């Protein structure tokens, strides 16, 4: 993690994710200091600039936003997808029975890497918006493509 990296707070639990920021927000690291305490200054996409403090790097609970794998972007960006039910996919329903009202369009695909982890070691995520205007972000592995749309 370095100045000029793009970051996002880790609000949603990993799995099962039941908290969804509306929408997800992102910022750029503009300064850092070793302290103690550690500080990171962030300029957010809303135009707000803030300084975060923590006693350890992991405590910031920030993820660095990096490029997803090219094949993953190619497979998901601009497609229609649906989140797979907690019970998992079934042979007759790739979404495992998730209501079709959760079908949405994928408009962003990227990697989230915890700020304390090595670059490129994170998980691929996607963000989609469903018809009522709700945003859903999650690991690519939590979704199924809806074909022919």
């Amino acid at each position, binding site marked *: 993690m370095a100045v000029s990296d793009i970051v996002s707070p880790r609000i949603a639990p990993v799995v099962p994710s039941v908290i969804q920021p509306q929408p997800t927000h992102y910022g750029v690291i503009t300064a850092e200091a070793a302290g103690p305490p550690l500080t990171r200054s962030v*300029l957010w*996409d809303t*135009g707000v600039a803030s300084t975060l403090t923590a006693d350890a790097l992991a405590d910031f609970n920030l993820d660095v936003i990096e*490029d*997803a794998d090219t094949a993953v972007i190619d497979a998901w960006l601009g497609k*229609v997808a649906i989140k797979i039910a907690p019970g998992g996919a079934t042979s007759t329903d790739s979404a495992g029975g998730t209501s079709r009202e959760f079908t949405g*369009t994928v408009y962003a695909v990227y990697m989230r890497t915890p700020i304390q982890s090595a670059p490129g070691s994170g998980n691929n995520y996607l963000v989609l918006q469903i018809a009522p*205007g709700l945003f859903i972000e999650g690991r690519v592995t939590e979704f199924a493509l809806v074909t022919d749309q």
Partner: protein
Amino acid sequence: MAFAVGDRARVRLSSAALSDSKVQPQPPRIGVVTRVVGGPPDVIDLVFEDGKVLNIAATFLDEVRDAQAATITAFQGRVAVGTRASAQFSQALRGNVIDLYGIDPGGAGAFTDFVLIKPKTGPWYEVAATAAVVIGDR
């Protein structure tokens, strides 16, 4: 090209590690430069469209300027959709072209034209003009 008073700018949300993937703020926000204090790096005072005021090094901003004439001619007032790997995005992402602009990350002097698209019930999203296509029958 350095920032100047009256230039448009936005928070820079790309990096060395984030150049193929994109994050798409909902909605996108653009501001206007009200003051420049020479550096390096130059320090910019910026007021956003919602009234927020920012004082920040130019390094962390994208300069926003007019798109090139050919881009404007091709996309203004049209319905468009993004593409990836030579395939159009889902029809659900076809939308009105809201904004056309050139983006120069960090104000270094190299602009790329972008198209901001808003489907009727979909998210705001921006793609490079070279990765957008006009939907001809709308």
